[in-house]
């Protein structure tokens, strides 16, 4: 067989709608997720979590549990294998230092793992384990102005404080000022597949089937924690039932499964219950954000002050950088942004879909709506009027920025021109109707990654890359990207992903996956082209080359690189019952090159559904007395159900980003950004009442209506 990569010129696969590569497996139940693999002698681990918010373990009555039927081991801090205080893929992660000491930092911290022959036995034994604690006073209540609030000192990322200009002077000189607080509650990812892993030793290697957004990083972290050679750990995550950030890093279930497999010398499965997911995989912390906007009478900003605060745990510092979005969206003569944190005795918050931008956009885009109202300027016009030419804080040019096109095209399709700007004037039966708009943006990032390409003897090409498809459509998109890079039809590409043995690659997160992996595949294909000569004979085991995008990524110009968008929503509010229904949403986005329109649309709409859900439903209730959640499950923590979601449309304007060879910007986060603000702004337009606290629950609508009389 001879290679034909030079011979065939095709219309590009990128940009054409393709159904999912793994679609058949998903609709027939053949797709296997982490906990669904079967092994003989599989043992089952069940976690025991702390029931106190702060203190230490004084005793664990393990003897009676060890005697229960089927119990193989009870691991706890006095007998568990030692974990190195290792620096993992993203730095040290104390949240996976489980069973290492007697400290209890929050409700829901792992204090033991019971391993048994069957899941039923493991569960009963775990529930029977008596753990004695010495409790200490705890504080789990987040509020603005908490005395322990501090400004984090790390200036490596955008969590630091940035200011320019004289804020107070510009505010004083402003014709119109908005000065309001906005709050968002504790929110949880709740990927439909709870975290689970199966760990086993196989020929001297630790093999882990995990549900992870980054198999390579997880393998590296496990090796470091267990003091193993990195090459002796393999992690695979063929199918992942949603992640949204919660599966971005190694989580306690995988560590515990690996520890248990080492102790009992058998394959061990550890799966979190839904309730356990609420304390062990990160979540979005509650935020309180003060927005001060000062503007000329025509709405042009003179002052923008975005002061965000949120909480972190006492285990490690996590900063929800809610104010960062204001450094991208709008310029002002005086510009101040800061993200502060307060440590509490709570589970550690972590990245959750559009970390920072999701709550941050609710604050800034609600405030902009208030500014539009007070200036008497149309909300769309106000955004266009404040469109910056360069990065408002950095001064760097944008690689591409099509915000205005998104607003103009979105407004046209949504019928914005017919909108009566007055609030509370449209009624349909018991419903008051209103429309709202908000801007969206999210950083377009890229991380150097590696991939291999094999020219097979049969004429096909096999691509191996430690990418993950967590529902994004990555597997399919990468087939299209590889096909175009190789200039062959998509049916000649075999895509192998989600295996740490394929080498280093960026995880599926932060809207960086597809762009990072595309760079790596392009680099690998370039290597292959250097090796292949047209007409040459391909050996039976193919010709494999590896590519690394390190140089290509390092060579990229330093620019403001972001996707942008405009979110439109129509809401109906019954002020007699407090019910709010979203009637339609439209998102117009500019996100560079769209690889697969079919799955891209799904991902954007999915993000918008998250925004709707954030606006109306999502809120974890933490009990101040116990420090634990009340109703920490899918009945107590509401995510949008089908009946909540109207016809939502997402589309994009054509955008060519000349400053990246792939032209890709990423789509995972931007759909949620601004969506909650658009809904909240629509609720204001419907009722004349401004909701600055999410979610907009019926009781809050009723209370707000009562206040107005």
């Amino acid at each position, binding site marked *: 067989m001879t290679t034909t990569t030079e011979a065939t010129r095709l219309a590009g696969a990128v940009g054409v709608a393709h159904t999912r590569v793994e679609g058949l497996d*998903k609709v027939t139940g053949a797709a296997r997720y982490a906990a669904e693999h079967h092994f003989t002698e599989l043992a089952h681990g069940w976690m025991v979590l702390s029931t106190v918010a702060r203190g230490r373990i004084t005793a664990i009555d393990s003897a009676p549990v060890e005697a229960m039927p089927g119990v193989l081991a009870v691991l706890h801090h006095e007998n568990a294998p030692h974990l190195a205080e290792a620096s993992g893929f993203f730095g040290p992660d104390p949240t996976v230092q489980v069973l290492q000491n007697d400290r209890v930092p929050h409700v829901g911290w792992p204090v033991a793992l019971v391993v048994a022959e069957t899941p039923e036995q493991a569960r009963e034994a775990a529930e029977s384990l008596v753990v004695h604690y010495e409790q200490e006073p705890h504080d789990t209540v987040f509020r603005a102005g908490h005395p322990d609030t501090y400004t984090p000192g790390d200036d490596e990322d955008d969590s630091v404080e940035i200011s320019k200009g004289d804020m107070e002077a510009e505010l004083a000189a402003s014709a119109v000022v908005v000065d309001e607080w906005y709050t968002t509650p504790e929110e949880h990812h709740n990927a439909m597949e709870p975290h689970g892993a199966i760990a086993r030793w196989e020929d001297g290697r630790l093999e882990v089937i995990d549900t992870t957004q980054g198999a390579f990083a997880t393998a590296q972290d496990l090796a470091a924690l267990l003091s193993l050679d990195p090459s002796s750990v393999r992690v695979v995550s063929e199918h992942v039932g949603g992640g949204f950030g919660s599966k971005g890093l190694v989580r306690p279930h995988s560590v515990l499964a690996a520890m248990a497999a080492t102790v009992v010398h058998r394959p061990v499965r550890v799966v979190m219950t839904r309730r356990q997911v609420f304390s062990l995989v990160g979540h979005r912390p509650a935020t309180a954000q003060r927005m001060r906007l000062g503007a000329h009478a025509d709405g042009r900003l003179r002052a923008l002050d975005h002061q965000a605060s949120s909480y972190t745990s006492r285990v490690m510092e996590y900063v929800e950088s809610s104010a960062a979005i204001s450094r991208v969206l709008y310029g002002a003569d005086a510009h101040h942004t800061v993200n502060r944190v307060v440590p509490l005795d709570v589970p550690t918050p972590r990245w959750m879909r559009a970390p920072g931008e999701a709550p941050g956009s609710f604050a800034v885009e609600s405030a902009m709506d208030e500014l539009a109202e007070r200036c008497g300027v149309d909300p769309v016009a106000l955004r266009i009027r404040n469109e910056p030419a360069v990065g408002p804080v950095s001064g760097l040019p944008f690689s591409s920025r099509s915000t205005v096109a998104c607003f103009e095209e979105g407004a046209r399709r949504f019928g914005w021109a017919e909108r009566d700007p007055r609030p509370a004037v449209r009624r349909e039966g018991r419903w008051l109707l209103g429309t709202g708009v908000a801007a969206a943006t999210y950083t377009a990032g890229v991380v150097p990654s590696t991939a291999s390409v094999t020219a097979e003897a049969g004429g096909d090409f096999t691509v191996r890359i430690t990418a993950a498809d967590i529902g994004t459509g990555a597997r399919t998109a990468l087939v299209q990207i590889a096909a175009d890079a190789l200039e062959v039809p998509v049916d000649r590409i075999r895509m192998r992903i989600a295996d740490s043995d394929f080498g280093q690659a960026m995880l599926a997160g932060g809207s960086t996956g597809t762009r990072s992996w595309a760079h790596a595949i392009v680099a690998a294909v370039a290597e292959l082209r250097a090796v292949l000569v047209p007409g040459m004979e391909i050996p039976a085991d193919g010709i494999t080359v590896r590519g690394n995008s390190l140089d290509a990524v390092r060579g990229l110009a330093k620019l403001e690189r972001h996707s942008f968008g405009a979110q439109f929503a129509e809401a109906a509010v019954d002020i007699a019952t407090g019910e709010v229904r979203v009637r339609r949403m439209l998102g117009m986005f500019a996100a560079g090159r769209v690889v697969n329109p079919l799955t891209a649309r799904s991902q954007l709409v999915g993000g918008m559904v998250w925004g709707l859900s954030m606006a109306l439903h999502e809120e974890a209730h933490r009990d101040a007395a116990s420090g634990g959640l009340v109703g920490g499950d*899918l009945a107590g923590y509401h995510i949008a159900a089908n009946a909540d979601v109207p016809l939502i449309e997402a589309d994009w304007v054509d955008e060519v980003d000349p400053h990246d060879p792939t032209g890709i910007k990423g789509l995972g986060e931007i759909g949620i950004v601004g969506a909650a603000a658009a809904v909240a702004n629509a609720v204001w337009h419907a009722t004349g009442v401004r909701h600055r606290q999410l979610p907009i629950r019926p009781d809050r609508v009723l209370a707000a209506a009562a206040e107005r009389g």
Partner: protein
Amino acid sequence: MALATSSTITLHVNGERRTLPVDHRTTLLDALRDHLELTGSKKGCDHGQCGACTVLIDGRRAVSCLQFAVAAEGREVTTIEGVADGDTLHPVQQAFIDLDGYQCGYCTPGQICSAIAVIEEHAAGWPSAATEDVRPEAGAPPLDADEIRERMSGNLCRCGAYVSIVQAVARAAEAAQGESAQDKSAQGGDLAGAEAGTAVTA
């Protein structure tokens, strides 16, 4: 006398008789997943709060996580692995592929089993909470988007694929109604207007 806490039971799953010993605590969901290696039915919450474990029991949709296996003896169970006709996908399955009615795929088997039942329940004249007038004289409501949304609300989807799920159920329902089914679903009705892609093999 000590009570027996396990039993050997026979389950009828996807047309097959499967005899297995079960701990009484084993749910039908766990029996399917752990004992029969039918892992298509998913465990999302294990408490009847998400619908990912939906199967058909005696032809009706049910959450298998709240059904003890021992209590399912003698009932006909159909899982996602059993809804296709050999190599021919059920119209609901095909519509989910064509209209991208999923993302991560974890809720998908439950969504599909539920949708199959929704179409049958509607054909049997069952009203829903979205039905304006539930009195029998009012007749069965059309299976419009609002009816599908309400009837499918017992299946949560965290990826937020509801819009295309509704379109997929509508398309499959059209096909089931058999009114020149193939032509109509290919064109797409009001609800089935999403872009359909071509298959990619890899």
